[in-house]
């Protein structure tokens, strides 16, 4: 029999941890809304996405228990994000560079 190396289900987070995460998430929501009213130029989008990514990490690590997940699950999640990056980046390389060279007939 294999030993219980990864034993996610035996780990119960305290209610206090979840409350702390919730409070942080609510604070970040108010922060992102408030910051949107300030003219920061391009950085508005960067900050908005930065806060959104932070919130995503909090939800994934704590609420979705990635912290206590098996290595395989973690690998699958990171792999999934990698595919999303391929989807977004490769699509954008097309649209970002289309106008660089004149396309015949257009």
């Amino acid at each position, binding site marked *: *029999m294999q030993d*219980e190396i*990864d*034993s*996610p*289900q035996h780990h*119960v*987070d305290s*209610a206090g941890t*979840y*409350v702390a*995460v*919730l409070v942080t*998430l*609510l604070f970040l*929501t*108010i922060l*992102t*809304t408030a910051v*949107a*009213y*300030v*003219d920061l130029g391009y950085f*508005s*989008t960067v900050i*908005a*996405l930065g*806060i*959104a990514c932070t*919130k*995503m990490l909090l*939800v*994934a690590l*704590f*609420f*979705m*228990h990635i912290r206590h*997940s*098996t290595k*395989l*699950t973690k690998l*699958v*999640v990171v*792999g*999934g*994000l990698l*595919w*999303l990056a391929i*989807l*977004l980046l490769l*699509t*954008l390389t097309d*649209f*970002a560079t289309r106008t660089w060279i004149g396309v015949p007939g257009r």
Partner: protein
Amino acid sequence: MADHSHTETLDLRVQFDTAEQQKDCSTLGMWIFLITEVMFFGGMFAAYTIYRQFYPEVFAIASTSLNAKIGAFNTCVLLLSSFTMVMAVRAGQLGKQKAIVGWLILTLIFGGAFLGVKGIEWHEKFVEHHIPGQAEFHLEGLPQSEQGHAQIFFSLYFSMTGLHALHMVVGAGMLIWLLLEARKGTFSAKYYTPIDVGGLYWHFVDIIWIFLFPLLYLIDRHLKV
């Protein structure tokens, strides 16, 4: 190897060696499904990025026509529902039957509240003639030549929030099923995988909204204070 002659229970089906293995298997399966969902929504986020890059000013003006305060409020409601959901999972881990039911009901209430507010917002858009495809579509502050581009923003707004809301409705159905099972006493500290896996789905839908909110509601808010 494990003895496969054991009688089958919910927490240990015959095809698994250990309860641990069964649970890991369910969790992994759910994550694989969620990744297909990430790719599904990812296509829409890609479309959004490209069109926003094409028409940044139109997107900014169209975005400010949405009510950011209601959006922020609704985001908080959804985050609260995620919190109550994780508390339901925690109650499952501890085998507290009544607490599971209570937290699930709260999750359902917050989820329903989110959908209700969303419905009110959509209705407002109908009243303001901001529905893409409407003959009388008109977004204030834009010349006639840019109205079509504004329709692209609202097409994305309605498809993305609509698809998100559809996921919420599916999630609500799932919560009701979990509730019925929880009241029957199906779940215990040994077997709460359905709540856990259902929670993963609910949090995933929450994460989608975490990105939708700033991308749709909060573009260049300073233009209109």
